[in-house]
């Protein structure tokens, strides 16, 4: 019986450090291209699937990529803002359903998406627990947000201030969790959805405070006339919308001038989509309307170009590693001449010696493959977040 693997195993477990270094080298050099390929495939899947499900996105002229990334994937880079008039303009054309989006604020690291109920229908999002947005100050959580923050309907979530050092900034708003969405395995799982008006309240455009007509404390009143009361900064502003104070919340000015970051336009048919796009082509137009699929495809082309460069670099490193591994084995064989001579003297054939060395190489390669597999499984399990971190945020 030739027990090559037994002897090989004994040898490599005796020479632990050399084995660990070899396994680490082979593992890393095999893992890198596979992991890169996996991440790129996942990024392509994530980016393209959502982009192809979103026919048109309108926003201020500027970076089409920022506009799409912010609107579709709730990326951190907020495009130049526009007003609700842009959404109304699309509605007036009767060519598409406009879904206004205001993606600017965050709550405990998760993007707050201000939108309308049309968005949920458009994306096919369903409520798993609780109810849909109904009242000012309500929020609906994506499945993973609810999971990671351990929140359920009835709990509260506080919006994060845009800047910690902005002393003149608005107070964070304590939102009530109305519902939690079913898991959709898309970016929507990672978002906090609110009504547009709630988003504007977070920004400070709408607010609720003590009834100034009934103020008795003179330090709260700056100036009082028959038609107007000017309050001091001491006036108490509500940071939470409740049934008791909801009536005090109000917006100043015309809501059509309020900001939004984008409008998703869902044309009623292909022809309507083409006509709609045509209306935003003039040079004087301050708005742009883009096909997310085209924008994302451009992004992926760039990523793949970079990947080609990385592939070339990895190939060179892989070649160097293979040569280094061959060198290690060659030097190891020289050091083991005496041992090989002993085995030969006992009566072992050269073929058996070759088998012993082959078994050692196989064990090392197998260990590297298993390790590489484990690392790939680990990367795959976090690929969704990793892709988001690498390409979106």
């Amino acid at each position: 019986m030739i027990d090559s693997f037994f002897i090989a195993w004994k040898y490599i477990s005796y020479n632990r450090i050399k084995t660990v270094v070899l396994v680490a080298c082979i593992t890393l050099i095999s893992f890198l291209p596979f992991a890169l390929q996996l991440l790129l495939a996942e990024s392509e899947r994530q980016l393209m699937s959502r982009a192809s499900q979103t026919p048109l996105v309108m926003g201020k002229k500027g970076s089409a990529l920022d506009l799409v990334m912010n609107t579709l994937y709730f990326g951190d880079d907020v495009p130049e803002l526009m007003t609700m008039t842009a959404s109304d303009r699309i509605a007036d054309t009767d060519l598409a359903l406009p879904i206004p989006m205001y993606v600017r604020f965050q709550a405990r690291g998760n993007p707050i998406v201000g939108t309308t109920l049309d968005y949920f229908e458009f994306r096919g999002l369903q409520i798993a627990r609780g109810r849909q947005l109904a009242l000012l100050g309500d929020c609906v959580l994506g499945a993973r947000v609810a999971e990671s923050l351990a929140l359920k309907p009835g709990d509260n979530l506080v919006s994060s201030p845009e800047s910690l050092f902005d002393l003149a900034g608005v107070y964070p708003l304590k939102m009530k969790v109305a519902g939690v969405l079913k898991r959709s395995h898309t970016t929507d799982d990672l978002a906090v959805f609110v009504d547009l008006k709630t988003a504007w309240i977070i920004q400070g455009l709408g607010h609720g405070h003590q009834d100034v007509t009934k103020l008795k404390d003179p330090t709260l009143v700056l100036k009082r006339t028959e038609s107007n009361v000017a309050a001091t900064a001491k006036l108490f502003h509500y940071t939470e919308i409740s049934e008791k104070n909801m009536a005090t919340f109000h917006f100043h000015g015309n809501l059509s001038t309020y900001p939004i970051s984008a409008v998703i336009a869902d044309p009623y048919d292909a022809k309507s989509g083409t006509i709609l796009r045509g209306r935003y082509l003039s040079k004087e137009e301050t708005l742009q309307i883009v096909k997310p699929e085209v924008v994302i495809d451009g992004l992926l082309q760039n990523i793949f170009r970079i990947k080609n460069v990385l592939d070339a670099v990895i190939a060179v490193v892989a070649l160097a590693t293979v040569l280094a591994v061959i060198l290690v084995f060659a030097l190891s064989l020289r050091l083991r001449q005496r041992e090989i001579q002993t085995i030969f003297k006992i009566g072992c054939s050269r073929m058996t010696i070759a088998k012993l060395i082959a078994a050692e190489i196989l064990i090392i390669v197998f260990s590297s493959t298993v390790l590489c597999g484990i690392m790939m499984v680990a990367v795959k399990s976090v690929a969704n977040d990793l892709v988001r971190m690498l390409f979106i945020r």
Partner: protein
Amino acid sequence: MIAINNLAFSYPTGKFLLQIPEFSVEKHEKIAVIGPSGTGKTTLLNLIAGIITPSRGSIRINDTSVDQLNDAQRRQLRITHIGFVFQDFELLDYLNVNDNILHPYRITRALQLNSAVRERARILAEEMGIGDKLKRRPNDLSQGEKQRAAICRALLPQPRLILADEATGNLDPENKTRILNLLFRAVAEHETTLLAVTHDHELLGRFDRVVDFRDFRI
């Protein structure tokens, strides 16, 4: 058992020449080979074992002409019929004593490793006084213990010919006697022939015959 005729061997450097006109060993014979260092005692054992081949002349073991065999046949002969105790033990550092003893069984299909062989290895190690060292690695053993492990490895396949190169060289008097007794018992029980290179002149009286190498070397 062994018949050598008109044997000549020289290393490629040409500095050393071994010539043996005639030399024979009978079956079950216990021969001690003596002589000063560098006279070719180890070379003779290597020639008989087929590790090296003669420049001319013939070596026969029973009916087999070792010098006529090809490389594979000589290895087969060596592993199945000859137990070689090397001068410097030649144990493998990464195997424990037990695995070193069983090593020949793991590198050839000619020997079958089974529970009986494992048990025989254990008993042999007990008899050699290293029964409690089976899980240790060679680096943890004394010179004498390494020597005994090497002898166990040579004796385990129950060879027809034992070639021992200074088998008792590193042992204390008590262990020398013990090892020699075991080697002689192997000769008696398994109809083995023993050809032992030694410098221990006090042991020579226990061998059937003593060959002085100064007679061969030119």
